[in-house]
């Protein structure tokens, strides 16, 4: 069973302060730590678990600059067999549709049974690339997947719906599955894995190798364009309590008492 996993190297902003840069179209990234997109990490783990069960190869792909090698090395260290980085100056400012098109250009000539990727990326949050890629390849898909069972020519998945409900769906192979967080417990990288990964080559493919034209990628080829970023307005006037921990704790408990929620 050959599995392709599409991953993205993203800044971790869950706990960090996000500042808009001077261009107004991007955020300042100098002080941010980059890592594999959280959803993609679960997708990679699911691919590795399926490989352990059914055999085969796991191939990792990313669209990104040289910095994304770090994420690809991590995937190789965890057990992926080969890695490709799709990189070209012309790819900059591509939207979700074009990212899918770049991935499609690389994948259409590969052999695979399953393509896994995260539901979305933590940076732009499109939740668009995986399902678009499936349509371009002319294969089936299932999104927001929380359980995967490969059967004879089919894959049986649990899709996450709203409010704790799931649906079971059977999809013909080959297929693209977008993986939801919490589906498994992603493994840590081992020292032996890092050594093994260091010897592996990361293949880089650009515009020409992928048979793409400049005008169909990047900003020129993207059907949507990011005009500007701005900080959202507050919907409520939040009263920020100030002082040392003891002071704010006193203030807050007094407020709670006043509001009658302490019983």
């Amino acid at each position, binding site marked *: 069973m050959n599995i392709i996993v599409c991953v993205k190297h993203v800044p971790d902003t869950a706990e960090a302060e996000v500042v*808009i840069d001077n261009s107004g179209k991007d955020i300042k990234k100098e002080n941010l730590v980059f890592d594999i997109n959280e959803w993609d990490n679960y997708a990679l783990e699911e691919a590795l678990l399926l490989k352990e069960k059914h055999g085969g190869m796991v191939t990792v792909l990313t669209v990104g600059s040289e910095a994304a090698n770090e994420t690809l090395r991590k995937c190789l260290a965890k057990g992926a067999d080969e890695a490709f980085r799709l990189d070209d100056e012309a790819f900059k400012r591509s939207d979700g549709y074009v990212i*899918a098109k770049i991935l499609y250009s690389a994948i259409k000539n590969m052999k695979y049974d399953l393509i896994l990727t995260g539901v979305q990326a933590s*940076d732009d949050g499109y939740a668009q690339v995986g399902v678009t890629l499936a349509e371009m390849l002319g294969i089936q898909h*299932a999104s927001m997947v929380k359980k995967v069972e490969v059967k004879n020519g089919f894959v049986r998945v649990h899709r996450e719906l709203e409010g704790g409900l799931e*649906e079971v*769906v059977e999809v013909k192979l080959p297929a693209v599955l977008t993986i939801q*967080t919490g589906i498994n417990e992603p493994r840590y990288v081992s020292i032996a894995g890092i050594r093994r990964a260091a010897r592996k080559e990361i293949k880089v493919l650009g515009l020409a190798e992928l048979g793409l034209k400049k005008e169909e990628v990047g900003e020129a080829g993207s059907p949507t364009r990011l005009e500007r970023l701005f900080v959202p307005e507050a919907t409520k006037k939040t009263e920020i309590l100030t002082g040392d921990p003891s002071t704010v704790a006193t203030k807050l408990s007094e407020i709670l008492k006043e509001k009658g929620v302490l*019983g």
Partner: protein
Amino acid sequence: MKEIFVLAEHRRGELRDITFELLSLGRKLAEKLDGNLVSAVLGFGVKDFTDKVARYAEQVLVVEDEKLKEFNSEAYQKVLTNILEERKPFLILLGHTSYGMELAPSLSTALNIPLTTDCIGLDFKDGKLQVIRQMYGGKVNAEVSFSEAESYMVTVRSGAFPVEEPKITSGKIIVVPSHLTEEDLAPKRFVEYIEEAKGEVDITSADIIVSVGRGIKDAKNIPLVEGLAKALGGVLASTRPIVDKGWLPKDRQVGLSGKTVKPKLYIAVGVSGSFQHLAGIKGSGILIAINKDPKAPIFRVADYGIVDDLFKVVPVLKEKIIELKQKI
């Protein structure tokens, strides 16, 4: 005349809230454009709710087929491709939901229509469509424009637009054949729904909830927040990452994919406030946030905020509350 097209979303015999949010938004945009609002209801035995949809839209296209009994993106795509290719609406609106996310990217690609997802604002700037969507977990908003096209497709975030009272008494109901065959369903089949197992605590009935998020850093720190919940006589809940990591069971998860809660008091500890989480606490009384990042989205909706290290604040807060409670 320009047409705004809304896909009605329903599950298990009920129209979902997003449908009315989309219809209300679509109504407003149609009026701005001096155009028509058209909605499509795909399903089986959906006569009951086509009337509800017809109170918002000038036209309701009803596609009844047993093969459309449950949502199936493959079947929906086949039916909608026929409809959309014929009508070529100016703007197609779907929910950014588990159904919309399964359908919109492939449908827009098949029809070669520009798509943008998870929008929280839509407007026309110099006659051109411009949308607002969020990035980096809701920490920044982005203004997005489209390249020139005949049609555009947008998925809309749940709860981002209000439900308005309908203005039309009854739109025209048009029955459209599905043209689906058994073979169309062969590549993708709905099997069944799976309900979440009942947990030991029902957080939806709690008056006081203390919720823990990523900021707690380690499973071993969770008792710290649980202690605060107990001191207040409340229950412990959490965000999705805590459940994903297996630190708390799924029945404690608040948000779109978990529980919707309406307590009198909700204290969010180390919670950044993703829209999925905020959607689950909309009906809460007093909302308090403790987070060290002053720009965390939770501070845009909280009544009171403490910008500090939760590990310093929570223990003292617990003591103060125990002290005060003894005096009451």
